[in-house]
Structures are given as structure tokens and as C-alpha cells.
């Protein structure tokens, strides 16, 4: 089997050809799987735009502004949280 090489560009612009380890080959394949996959997408581009927009709305807008975790936000220890819930459940 032919050996595989990777060319590394250093900060001083020198190039060095290094034999790739199996791990590097695998990581390279994974990178290309995703890179080529995303590049060649057609309908997928629209879907990714929707996914990213959705995640932004969910995690940034809704989570931060509208859906705080009340017990985490208002109490700093588990004991305080337990006391609050006990009080709530006894009170009702």
C-alpha cells in the first residue's frame, strides 16, 4: 500500500513533508467527509440555514430571555433549592 504524506507549512513559510499516521489519515477522511458533504449540498444548505437559525432562536433568544431555569437562577446551593421546593410543596 502506498504511503500517505501530509505537507505542513511552518510559520517561517518552510514546507515539510511528513508521513501521515493512521490516525491522521482517518481524521483527514472524516474532515473530507464533512467538508465535501457540506460543499456539495443542495437542499441541505437551506436545511442547515433553518437548523442554525432555529438553534439560535432556541438557545440564545428563548433560553436566555424567556426560559430561565428558575431554581438555578434564584438559588445557589442544592440545599437552598430543596428548602424552596419544600416550602412550595408544603404551602400548597
Amino acid at each position, binding site marked *: 500500500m502506498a504511503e500517505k504524506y501530509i505537507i505542513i507549512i511552518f510559520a517561517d513559510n518552510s514546507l515539510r513533508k511528513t508521513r501521515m499516521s493512521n490516525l491522521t489519515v482517518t481524521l483527514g*477522511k472524516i474532515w*473530507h*467527509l*464533512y467538508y*465535501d*458533504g*457540506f460543499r456539495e449540498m*443542495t*437542499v*441541505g444548505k*437551506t*436545511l*442547515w440555514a*433553518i*437548523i442554525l437559525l*432555529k*438553534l439560535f*432562536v*432556541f*438557545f440564545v433568544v*428563548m*433560553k436566555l430571555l*424567556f*426560559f*430561565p*431555569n*428558575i*431554581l*438555578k437562577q434564584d438559588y445557589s446551593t*442544592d440545599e437552598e*433549592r*430543596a*428548602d424552596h*421546593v*419544600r416550602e*412550595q*410543596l*408544603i404551602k*400548597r
Partner: protein
Amino acid sequence: MTVVDWSRWQFALTAIYHWLFVPLTLGLSLIVAIMESLYLKSKSEKWLAATKFWMTLFGINFAIGVATGIILEFEFGTNWSNYSWFVGDIFGAPLAIEGLVAFFMESTFVAVMFFGWNKVSPRFHLAATWLTWLGASISALWILVANAWMQYPTGMEFDPAQMRNVMDNFWELFSGIAINKYMHAVFSGWALSGVFVIGVSAWFLLKKRNEGFAVRSIKVGGWLGLVGLLLTMWTGDGSAVEVTKHQPMKLAAMEGLYHGGYSQGIVAAGLVNPSKTWNNDEDEYLFDITVPYGLSILAKHNLNAYVPGISDIVNGIDVNENGDTINTVSYAERIRLGKLAHESLRAYDQARAAHDEAGMNKAVAELKENYQFFGYGYFDSVDEAIPPVGVTFYSFRIMVILGSYFLLYFLVALFAVYRKDWLQKQNWLQWIAIISVPFMWLCSEAGWCVAEVGRQPWTVQDLLPTKAAISEISSASVITTFWLFALIFTVLLVAEVSIMLRQISKYSKTNLEIDNAH
């Protein structure tokens, strides 16, 4: 409406929208895996084209539906914080496993499935497709295990110091209710996807485009749908038996049955009397068509078995397997014992504040004695402990009637598709196949309505009613997020449907008899 009502509506709306996407993911991933297996076995480009087409629709549904369930998790933290704390790691553990293992497994292999054509070996690609299906199915397992625990809490002990139910036996989470519920939901996803595939394929037949592809798809969708529906019915039967054992009030509400009896019939169609209550003498139904022995068979697999009604359960009357009348704990007594449990918790709290170790131990012992009725202590009358009968009754009938209709649907579809060139000429049948598609979603959603409305007023059966599970928040914030959420999900749904329709239209103009799909 109170903050509890708004929060319930908000959660219901979120769950309904979420469930529009999930069952199609569960079933369509399997259909794609089957088609790809057929391609690998036959080496026919026709199966490859079919695989890629349905994979595209699966991808659209997956992309639009992914993370919609996360809103439910947000709502646990905001609206249901008492509940979230009270259930502790029992509810959290399955959800965490779902997030960490199943969802990531599903997401990883989805990438190989979509991007891996010509990049990985055909066998590896096929394995990724099957693992995507497996990941989706395992994901559903953890969610439904968590849900089932709320219907039948087991494998835990309440710790008043932590104010949490602490898990003491993980394996008890896999109760009969959990297993049946899981299989029922997953198999119904197969049936729903079968209907979807047949409906879309029928549109191809109607347009006289790619008819060979449509026929092949109907065969796969039809068989998987039929198997899925039969298994859904089988697990539904199992669920009914479990509900009878652990949630008899839900079963009685499903049936609108107030006064039970031996050899109890089941109402095939009818109207419940809205003014009937557990303690008045009005008729249960305005009209009803009853199948003799039906409910006894459904609930206990016994023609002559006794099935209690709502009034019987409230009064604490039941009959055991030997036919002896037994007294269960009446609802009035449950409320009394529940209030005693609350008193014990209060005593524990006071003893704890006073650092009175003996007082704390005494209070814990008393609390444990009545803990099984803890939730009833929040009620002032037994009326509060009865679920909405009308919604549960009608949802159950919608599910069963539509389920039966779809059994016929699959049988007709398979009969028609195996008659040479016959289905292609039956425009009326193609129209029925297309028009029926949304009714399968209605059937599926109605099933969830039975499960969730029927278990009211509980978030955790017998232990925590909905009204105690709610956080101390204002109605205004819940109303705002309710409409915000409704808007976002409606936009997502419209996006999904329009992108899907565009793709179906695009593919209909392509020759799917050869491999030119993308």
C-alpha cells in the same frame, strides 16, 4: 385561565408539535434502511434511487424536527421547576442518557448516511443507515422510560432532606408500562411512515410519473406500515392491561365508565353525557353503541372480568382476580392520608429547623407510611382527582377508529399494488391514499392525548398533581412564551411541508428508474 392552565397548554402545544416530527423520523429511517439493504442485495440502481429519494425526505424532517424537544426541557426548568426538582435524577438520568448517547449516535451516523455515498464502502454506509435508525429508536426509549415513570413511579425512595425522589433501582424504570409505551410509540411511527410513503407514492401515480418507483415504494411502505400497525395494536392491548393495573382511573375515563361491572362492554361509538359526575344519577352516555364483553377483554383478557368505573374507584370498590369484592382505598381516604403526609413533611421541616434529630426521624417514618398518597393531600374534594372524561373518551375513539381505518388502508394498498398495473388506473384510490395522510398524524396525536390527558390531574401519578408541580411564575410570561413558541413551530412546520413538497415535485420530474438522484 390560571398559570397552571396556560403552562399545561404550552406544554401540550410543544409536545404536539414535537410529535409531528418524531414518528416520521422513527419510521422513515427504517424504510430508508430497508431500501438500501434491497439495493445492496439486488445491486439495482432503482432501489438506490428510491433510497436517496426517501432519504432526502427523511433529512428534511430530521433537520426541521431536530432539537424541537429541547423546548420541553426549557419548560421543565421554567414552568415546572417544583416537578423537576421533586423527580430528581430519576427523570434526569434517562433524559441525560438520551442526550449524550442516543442523540449523538443518531447525529453522527446521519452525517455518514448523507455525506458518505462514494466516500465509505457500501457496507459501511448501510451500517450507518441502520445505526441512524437504531439511534433514533434508542433515543425514543429513554424519553418514554422517563414518561412511563411519571405514569407509574417506581424504583425510588423519597428523601425529605433533599425533597427529591432518589432512584434506588435503575432497572425498575423498565416497567411493563415503559416497555409497552415505548414499543407502542415506535411501532406507531412505522405505521405513520408507511402511510406517508404510500400517500406520497400515490401522488406519483396520480401524476403518471415514476410509476415503477411509486409501486416499489408502496410495497415497502405498505408492508412496514401493516407490520407496524399490527404491532401497535398488540402493544396497545398490552398498554391497556398495564393501565388497568396501575391507572384504573385513566381506563375508566377512556371509556367514560362511571359504574363498572362484570362482562363489561366497550363503547364503539357514542357521546358522553357532559353533566354526568361520579356522584349523580344521570346516564353515562347520551347515546352509545356498545360491544359486549369488549372492555373486560381489553382490560383483563377475560370475558367475565370485573372492570371498575370512576364512581367505583372513587368509593374504593374493586374485585380481585378470584372474583372477591375488595375494598381499595377510597379517594376521600386518600385525601385524608395525603394531608397526613403533608403534616409529616411540615413536622419534619420544623424539627429540622430546630435541629431535633428524634423529631425528624419520627416525621420521616410517618411520612413514609402515607407517602403513596402524598399527591392527594393537595385536593380539597375528590372531583379534583378525576381526569377530563370527555377529552380522554373522544381521543381514545379517534385513535382506535382511525387505527382500524389504517389497517384497512394498508390491506387495500397491498392488495392493489400486487395486482399488475391495477393501482395505476385507480385515481380514486390514489386520492384516498393522499388525503388519508394527515389523518394518520391525527391518530398518533390522539393516542398521546389519551395517555397524557387521561392521567390528569397528575404529573407524577398519586404523588404530585399538576397544580403543585408548577413554578411560582406569572401568567403573563407563560402567555408570551406560549404565543412565541406557537409562532416558531408553525413557521417550522410550514417550512418543512413546503420544502418537502418542493423536493417531491422536483423528483417527480426526474427519472427515478436510474440513479440520478442527489
